[in-house]
């Protein structure tokens, strides 16, 4: 292995190389842009044998990888904010097609250039696995794990790995690069499944629904069940990743941090989970019983984990870095739904922070912690929604 100080976008491109991606396609958009440049350089320098298609828009990049994945190639694409919205239509066909595409989503807000999670959150109906990661090392590691999960025959679902623009995409940190031989052994080069080749099939149609199934709900159920199955496979992959490379991120679905003997958990995602770690350390030194549960997998949602944790907690503060206008914070709502059937439910508080790229500081998390502790003390939530 080796170390390199690299920005998050280079970590993503490096993961493509380690995974021996065969066909990549992308359209530049800030703050994803430099991934396209790194991949173009790696292609020009023949760093490994792959094809990089510089297309005329994000919709086409999604469809190019969809096509190449259908043929059995290992594929990669990446985008940000508005580019992801433009991909929305073919993302559904990639999802319904059960094609193991891996995509880096470098978060950018709907409203402005700065990061929040509104881009990926708005794609929750497209039938993909949705992961959120915190730092450049986790970007590299998660993309490698995403291939292993997505291509698992039990899964065959595309996975989006989201990380915050600028804070990660353009900020350099030391990253450990695993040895290629070790990666090859753990994630063998792709063996194509050429089910669509003319010498293999006849009269077969892929990627188009014409109806006519005995029960038209069946494809929806099968798709839904496959996504739920990601939880188990993701956890297996995390275990084998740790065994091979010596790193792990919680149980894959969540990463609890300083959660021993606490009354309150803060749920946060992405880079601000890192800020929250610092806040939790400070608060615990001051005797405040507040820990962090970093949420890594939004789809599928770690239902069992939160139900277990809820038994030990008096309150959960959910920090949503996105909002569905008129509906609310997606993680907060999902969590409350998850806890509904529990006999004992902790109090839940909704915090909106970091939307439109607003900076979230350690002291903001202290405020979140204090407010939640206060609710615990008074046994009620006076103000359920707070804009930090």
């Amino acid at each position, binding site marked *: 292995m080796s170390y390199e100080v690299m920005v998050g976008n280079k970590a993503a491109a490096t993961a493509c190389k380690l995974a021996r991606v065969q066909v990549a396609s992308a359209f530049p958009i800030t703050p994803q842009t430099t991934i396209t440049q790194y991949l173009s350089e790696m292609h020009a320098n023949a760093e490994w044998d792959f094809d990089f298609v510089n297309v*005329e*828009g994000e*919709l086409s990049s999604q469809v190019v*990888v*969809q096509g*190449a994945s259908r043929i059995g190639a290992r594929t990669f694409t990446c985008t940000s904010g508005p580019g992801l919205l433009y991909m929305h239509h073919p993302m559904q066909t990639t999802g319904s097609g059960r094609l193991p595409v891996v995509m880096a989503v470098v978060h950018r807000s709907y409203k402005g250039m700065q990061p929040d999670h509104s881009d990926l959150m708005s794609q929750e109906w497209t039938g993909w696995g949705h992961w959120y990661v915190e730092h450049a090392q986790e970007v590299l590691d998660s993309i490698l794990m995403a291939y292993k999960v997505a291509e698992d025959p039990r899964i065959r679902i595309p996975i989006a790995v989201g990380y915050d623009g600028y804070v990660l995409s353009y900020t350099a940190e030391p990253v450990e690069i695993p040895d290629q031989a070790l990666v090859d052994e753990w994630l063998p080069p792709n063996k194509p499944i050429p089910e669509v080749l003319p010498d*293999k099939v006849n009269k077969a149609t892929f*990627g188009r629904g014409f109806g006519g199934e005995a029960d038209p709900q069946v494809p929806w159920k099968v798709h839904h069940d496959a996504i739920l199955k990601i939880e188990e496979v993701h956890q297996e992959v995390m275990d084998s990743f740790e065994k091979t490379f010596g790193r792990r991120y919680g149980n894959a679905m969540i990463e609890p941090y300083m959660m021993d003997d606490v009354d309150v958990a803060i749920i946060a995602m992405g880079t601000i989970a890192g800020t929250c770690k610092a806040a939790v350390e400070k608060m615990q030194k001051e005797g405040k019983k507040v820990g962090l549960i970093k949420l890594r997998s939004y789809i599928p949602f770690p239902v069992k984990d939160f139900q277990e944790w809820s038994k030990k907690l008096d309150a959960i503060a959910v920090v949503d870095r996105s909002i569905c206008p008129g509906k609310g914070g997606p993680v907060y709502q999902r969590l409350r739904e998850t806890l509904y059937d529990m006999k004992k439910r902790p109090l839940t508080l909704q915090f909106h922070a970091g939307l439109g790229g607003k900076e979230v500081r350690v002291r903001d998390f202290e405020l979140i912690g204090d407010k939640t502790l206060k609710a615990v003390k008074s046994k009620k939530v006076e103000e359920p929604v707070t804009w930090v």
Partner: protein
Amino acid sequence: MEEMGITPGSACQGCGAALAARLAFKALGPNVIRHGVPCCPDTVTKTPQIGTVFEGGGALLTGTSRGLKAIGREDVLAVGFFGDGGTYDIGFQGLSAAAERNENILVITKDNEAYMNTGNQRSGATPKYATTSTNPVGPKSRGKEQPKKNIPFIFAAHYVPYVATASVAFPEDLIAKVNYAKTITGFRIIIIQSPCPVGWRFEPEKTIEIARAGVQAGIWPLFEIQNGHDFKLNYKPKELKPVTEYLKPQARFRHMTEAEIAEVQEDTTSKWQSLIQSDEMGKVLI
């Protein structure tokens, strides 16, 4: 040649597009993957088919072609069978980009001059004065106001290896063009005029007659453009037949006045003269 068409598939009686598919895919043979985007008719061949979103035809062919290269199966040809909507309009951006990148793909466009899948709404391929379900004739409308987009020349202007037009009434010419396209690499597109009895409103047994009249009147000229430059007109009658022979049997043009027909005649003759000149020079000036 093996028959690759499906009878009756999803086509109506007298469907020009089903005939275009039958001829083209018979010439292509079995070692192809057909790519479809929403179009009419859709179920036309027994080759494996991959579909995607309406606007994604060019990118899907790109992905398949690159994927075939990645797995070492470049012997298989990625073929698109799209309608005029998927070529001229909603699919144009992706196809234009695939042409500009000179992707190793073959596009067969069955041009039935309107969105027939949804019931005959106007497209960029609908000719002037044609009525469609979105160009009804009324006090404020004489049918479609604008001319048909010149898509073969637009693709030629991408400097791609091969652009051709073809007609279901000229099967030898159509098959020869498909056979030639098979022998070369890079971006190839063949646009086949495919009369639609339902949308154009004529009796189903007249499909070939109408297609033939279109070619003989110079309304749908048969030509090839190679590398955006080399031009060849494939059918050159000594004298063009009048456009009325093409227009009159189709109820979509029934409302046209003598003056409007004269305008179409003049426009057709003028464009034909340009094509004859290009043919004599052996090149187009793009």
